[in-house]
């Protein structure tokens, strides 16, 4: 196991490095004019723009820039934002934004798991009856209707009916309710859908029939066999879900004006903020690799049939 972990760690580091260097170099292929908003291009002459770029170190050779960035990283310095929040230290930005997004992400993840799994079990328990129809209706609604429509409906009308705020305020807990609900809607549907499917699969397997014939109660078979086996394929996603609570939702954070990380990467790419893009990409690459790695470890821990190394 220790050997496996070491091997995977080295592989993970290599993967992150390849992703990061590729993104870093691709960013340097972008046109120089992209570093300036249109109004600035119109206001300044070419020489002034070049002077600015030189002062920011953007005219240096990409390998020099890469070396400088790695050097900064080892000193614990993530650099400063270039265009999105000019000169603001990126560490400050992330320290401001990640906790907000993570709090919402964590709350919605817990709600998504608890309600999603409950709904999934309800659907299986009342298969082809009201519980199943209710759940199917909910899943269909969430997945088929474009999310902007119901999110907007919740923000404008539900807030009016329940007398809640339309936007988030950090000092008013009641204003957190609607964004958390909105963030959870999709994951509730996801967990319910897949749990139902896996449980129905398990229900029809021979070992279940055998257990029932053997005299185990239906409740016992459900709890100790069907649910346990059905949840295993979902467990693998939990570490990634947990780690990516910091990535935020562009739409919901924009609607409720949550000052989090949702949309930060998109904005940074759009405004060609190389420094910010490379830090966020590095962060997400690490989280992705770590998420998959932890998922593998977790599934091995919960399912004794799975081993990560070849036992001899």
């Amino acid at each position, binding site marked *: 196991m220790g050997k496996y972990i070491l091997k995977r760690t080295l592989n993970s580091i290599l993967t992150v490095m390849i992703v990061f260097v590729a993104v870093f170099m691709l960013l340097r292929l972008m046109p120089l004019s*992209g570093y300036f908003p249109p109004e600035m291009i119109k*206001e300044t002459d070419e020489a002034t723009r070049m002077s600015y770029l030189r002062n920011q170190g953007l005219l240096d050779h990409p390998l020099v820039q890469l070396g400088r960035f790695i050097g900064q990283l080892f000193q614990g310095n993530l650099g400063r934002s270039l265009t999105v929040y000019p000169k603001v230290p990126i560490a400050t930005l992330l320290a401001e934004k990640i906790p907000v997004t993570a709090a919402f992400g964590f709350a919605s993840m817990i709600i998504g798991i608890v309600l999603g799994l409950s709904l999934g079990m309800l659907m299986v328990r009342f298969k082809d009856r009201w519980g199943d129809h209710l759940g199917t209706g909910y899943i269909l609604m969430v997945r088929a209707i474009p999310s902007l429509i119901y999110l907007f409906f919740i923000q404008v009308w539900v807030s009016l009916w329940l007398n809640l705020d339309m936007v988030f305020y950090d000092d008013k807990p009641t204003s957190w309710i609607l964004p958390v609900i909105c963030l959870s809607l999709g994951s509730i549907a996801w967990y319910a859908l897949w749990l139902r499917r896996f449980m129905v699969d398990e229900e029809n397997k021979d070992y279940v029939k055998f257990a029932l014939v053997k005299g185990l109660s239906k409740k016992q078979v459900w709890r100790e066999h069907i649910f346990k086996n059905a949840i295993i394929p979902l467990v693998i996603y939990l570490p990634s879900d947990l780690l990516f609570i910091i990535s935020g939702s562009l739409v919901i954070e924009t609607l409720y004006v949550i000052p989090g990380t949702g949309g930060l990467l998109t904005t940074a790419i759009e405004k060609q903020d190389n420094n910010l893009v490379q830090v966020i990409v590095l962060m997400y690459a690490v989280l992705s690799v770590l998420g998959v790695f932890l998922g593998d470890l977790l599934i091995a821990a919960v399912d004794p049939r799975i081993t990560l190394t070849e036992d001899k």
Partner: protein
Amino acid sequence: MKRMIAFLLAMVMMFSVAATSALGEDVAAAAEAIKQSKTYETTYNTYFSSSYSSFNYFSTAYATVREIVANCIDGLVEPDIYGVYAPSLAEDWDVNEDQTVWTFKIRQGLKWIDHNGNETEYALTAQDFVDGIRYIGDPKNDAYSLRVVRNLISGLYDYYWLLDDIDCGLVTDKNRDDVVASFDEMVGVKALDEYTVQYTLENSAPYFLSLIESSMLMLPVEYDYAMALGDDFAVDNEHMLYCGAYYVSAFERDKAITLTANPYYWDKENITLDTVEYQMIPDGTTSLEMFKRGMIDYTSVESEAYDSLQGTEYADNLLPTSHSFSTNYLWLDFDGENAEFKTFINNENFRKALLYSMDREVLAALREPVDPARILRNTINAEGAIYDSTGKDYTDYSPLKEIKETNYNNPELAREYMEKAVAELCDENGNIKGVEATTVDYLPVCSFDIDGKLPVTICYVGTDDEEEIIMAQLFKAMIEESIGADYIDFQIQAFAGWTYGTVADPLNYDIYFDSLSTGYADPSGILTRLTTDGAENVGCYNVPEYDALIEKALAAETFEERLQYFAEAEAYLCGNGFVIPFISSLRGYYMSNSIPYTSPRTLYGNEKYKGTLVMAEPLTQEEFETLKAAYEIEREKALAGE
């Protein structure tokens, strides 16, 4: 008989003056009654729609910061409620005869305050204004939008580029520190004593006060404080100092900003609001809903929302936005790869055909559905932005006045001009002379085939913004209908990744839509950028006649002569279709809980909250009209010196 007529005329005039005066008094009384009948709040709740990326007023490229800075850092002068420049941090000022040396007397005893509203040890002196220029003059400080100020203040251009040459190794025989130390000798801004600052300019600048109002680069800075912070200067509210009516007491990035009244402010008695609470609301629907729920005191109302409010309780609260000095125009590519368009756009008749082919009112109705005519604009510089010493509007100088008043919606004339262009540029079979069939490469935007024959293929490139797409479709319909689809094949490319660097700069378009804004009270701000080698001539036209007129304007001896040459130059550019302005950037309507015309009438700078009166309920149209009428009468009297 003549005496009788003269007597009667005199009587009529007397009665009309008396009647006007009586009417004026009635309006003033009605306006006063409105103001008296209200109770006023001490907090103003408003919003911002895009992020405040930084508060660094010298180096931020984003316009949003101006809103905060206008209230937190005072300049030397500011407009009064009638728009006349009045003392601000300068108590008094003086200018020499040719308006090249401006001397300002600074208020004494003022200190910079911090984000807690406490006075710091830093006194506000003339040196802070000198240091503002010192800060922007160093390329390492990345000052934004330097061009105008750098070219105007004597010696600043040479100082800046000398430092830059040293930084990039072009000059090696001079030491950077020595050059920085020589700032006071090299650059035409001096602290004559602790409270007197003097600017020496390269050229006569009668508009200098308006530049002080509009440009953040003319603001003061506490240099030692800023330099000690380095890159951290003004990245948030805690890393800057304040000398305006308010300071930023709380700042949550991308979320909220609180302005609190400066307890040490020099004009404290005119501060009517204790607090201004900003919150970020990126979309118009949310701001409208929040205004209805009483959460904010102001909201803009876009044209779609305007229609939805008709027949509701808010219909009576919709007020028209007053002015915008920004002009929307069509930018044309004179040197692109599309040989069909290139051949035609360099032809005067074709440009005039385009000029006369659009019904600008229909385009304007997208933004102003009620009275689209009020946002039409045929000139680049806005009407009401620039006046000569006699009060004559710049756009009333001939021949610009004729351009301003022309109705360009004339499909017959458009077709006529096109036929002339076709006669000059095509053979009898409709082949465009000198143009071969080929593929035009405007990638990453698009690529398309041209056949070298009529109709002329035009590639219009816009963003994927919904309103812009509708506008592009209207352009297509109008141009193809007026000039004729047999002559024009108007293709629309809505490019999702639209940036200046991918579309405009590499000439990946034939026509696109952009805007220009009159930044201060002189046409040079825009017009000098539109010359053949000007920064704004991204379409690469060649206009020696225009360039010559600009040269003459810049060398003119009087301001009136200068305006005359500028008016001729602008008329040349617009009348010949090198640039096609069509509407102002004004956007529809708003609703507000504040009484209008009580704060400084800022034309070129941003709104100031000093003097703002905020009510608990929205202002109605009737109240607005009464207050406006009373204000106009008062302003007229004030400008006449009564």
